[in-house]
């Protein structure tokens, strides 16, 4: 059984570091490839980035656990 979380994104805190994307793509595609990550960071280093999740995201929460800037937070715990 995999734990599943709601992830709250706060783009204001996001620095565009892509650590979340490296983590997600390495977990599910065994390579560092942000273009295959299920969390999508749209950031061309302008005033604010956009954070989205693709349908394939299973809410495992690993991206949020590795975000070091507080831009992704896990809320509550569900069972899937």
């Amino acid at each position, binding site marked *: 059984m995999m734990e599943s979380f709601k992830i709250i994104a706060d783009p204001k805190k996001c*620095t*565009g*570091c*892509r*650590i979340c994307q*490296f*983590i997600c*793509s*390495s977990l599910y*595609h*065994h*390579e*560092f*490839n*942000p*273009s*295959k990550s299920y969390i999508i960071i*749209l*950031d*061309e*280093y*302008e*005033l*604010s980035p956009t954070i989205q999740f693709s349908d394939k995201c299973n809410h495992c929460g690993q991206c949020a656990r*590795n975000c*070091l*800037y507080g831009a992704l937070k896990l809320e509550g715990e569900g069972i899937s």
Partner: protein
Amino acid sequence: MKYFGYTGNVVSIDLTNAQINLSKEKLEDLQNFIGGFGMNCKLFADLYSPNINPLSPENPIIFGTGPLVGTLAPGASRTVAISKFPATNAIANSCGSMSFGFHLKQAGYDHIIIHGKSDEPCYLFIHDDHIELCDASNIWGKDIIKTTDILKRKHDSSGVIAIGQAGENLIKSSLTLIDKTSTLGRGGLGALMGFKKLKAIIVKGTKGISIADPKRFNKIFLKFKERVKRYPQRDSWIELGMLRSLPIGMLLSAKGEKSKARQANEKNYLKNMKKRRIACPSCPMADKDILEITKPDNSHLICYTSSVINPLMMFGLKGLDSYTQVIELFNKINSYGLDALTINSLCELLNQMVSNNEIDQNEFNIEWNEDFKTYNKLLELIKQREGLGDIIAEGWEKLASLNNKIQNKMTTVKGLDIIFEPRLLKLGTMEFEQVVNPKGAHVASGGSPTYVGAGGSIEKMLTHFDRMGIPKLAHKRLLTPPKEEMIINVGRMTRYSEDWYTMLTCLGLCARAQMNRFYSHELITELFNSITGFDLSKEDLRKAAERSWNLSKILNVKEGFSRKDDKFPEEWFNSLKYGKNKLKLKDFYGTTEISKELANQLLEDYYDERGWDINKGIPSHSKIQELGLGEFL
């Protein structure tokens, strides 16, 4: 053959005939000459012919990244560019950050080699296997910010290196910006691209990077992450960025500039300048700044910079009274693709000479006043190469030929102006490095305890020696200065600081103090091996860095550089007026005044520690043999 970490691919583009070639790197080379710094040197040396004009089709530009770039390795974001630079005629690697290296690796390439020269303005677009030279006529003449915005809008998420008007007009001190933010190529990379009519390179990639040993890597990463999270000063680093390491307000205060000091302090930065903190890909210690200011006419200005300290450093200029003027001026310099450090030194020198009546204003063709308006006017003249601007565009030597008093006052080494003033900051490795760096006055290779804030104690110094992998046998020599009270021998220590910086740059890791402090020789070797699958020892890695440094030196020896060019600027031996104080050139601990004799001794100690010929200041035959560089002689 499977490559890990590295992509193994080099793409060459000949702009003269629009030919594109792909080649593979040899696995053996990738261990002997590593990544952005090392393979750049090797690829350049393979193509090299001596004494060509930097601004000629025969002078290639090579962009490279390291094996760790494009992965989760923390702070692995470097892009390195090598060429023969027009400001100095030296062959050198230049280094920048942001997302270009990341995108290049993701697109499947370690290096790009640019040959030849295009007849018409063009830009290079790379998207995975798609490589295209595109028409740049609609962006030629535009500044870097607009150029980058247009290209990113057209091609979507990507890494962009672009030049501004300064590069197009072949200004010798022009540089490029990566993603509008990080400078790359001090000393004329802008002009090199401008000469080739190459307005920009834009790259995006979706291929991904596989690494050799994910399990081992994950272990290293988890540990690293915990250390970063536990670092008590992390929050303040993220909040203040580089302002934390160089409190400009305090420096201005010491100069007696109270109002400027207040404006440059942390409080005003947070309230009236800072808009957003951004990070290079994979960096947990973000320090890049997007600033937003409200100008006196109530309009807003957005300014992108590697760090807020870059514009604030210009506050030292007389006649700039408010932080909004400083940021506006800096933003213009940046957008045109000029070098803020060079412009700053230039304005300071002209201010000083005019106020001492040492120069005739008629020689300038502009009325020189110490004010915002004059500085702005100067930028326009340089950008358009008019009058004084045209002379400045040709570099410091040309300016010196106007008036021999200028020559004596210039603080330049090999034609490049210094970045760190040792009379103010004392002679640490960063300051000393400016004298010996093959590129000219450059500091990047000075990462060391005198940079990362070891404080004064020998115990702390020794911890850093171990962290940087300085061989135990060398410790005693590093602690044996020409005069006992100096405590450290900065000449000898600079050699190992260069090794350390070179290792980081080879791999693609950031050398800034707040990242640097987390790395050790052991850790970066582990990262390299787990990512590439190679099995290098720590010593192999250090040797590879030393080999690359020596190779770049050998190329410069062929250009005629030697000990005569590693010259402490004359002006350093005079005192520097700073507020009410007169500052002298002193050693790192401030105990001893550095005379010319002592300076020479430190130089000789540096060459000796490098295993070089002390009289000539160049790699000795035995060093060249030891490093297996005979074929490049």
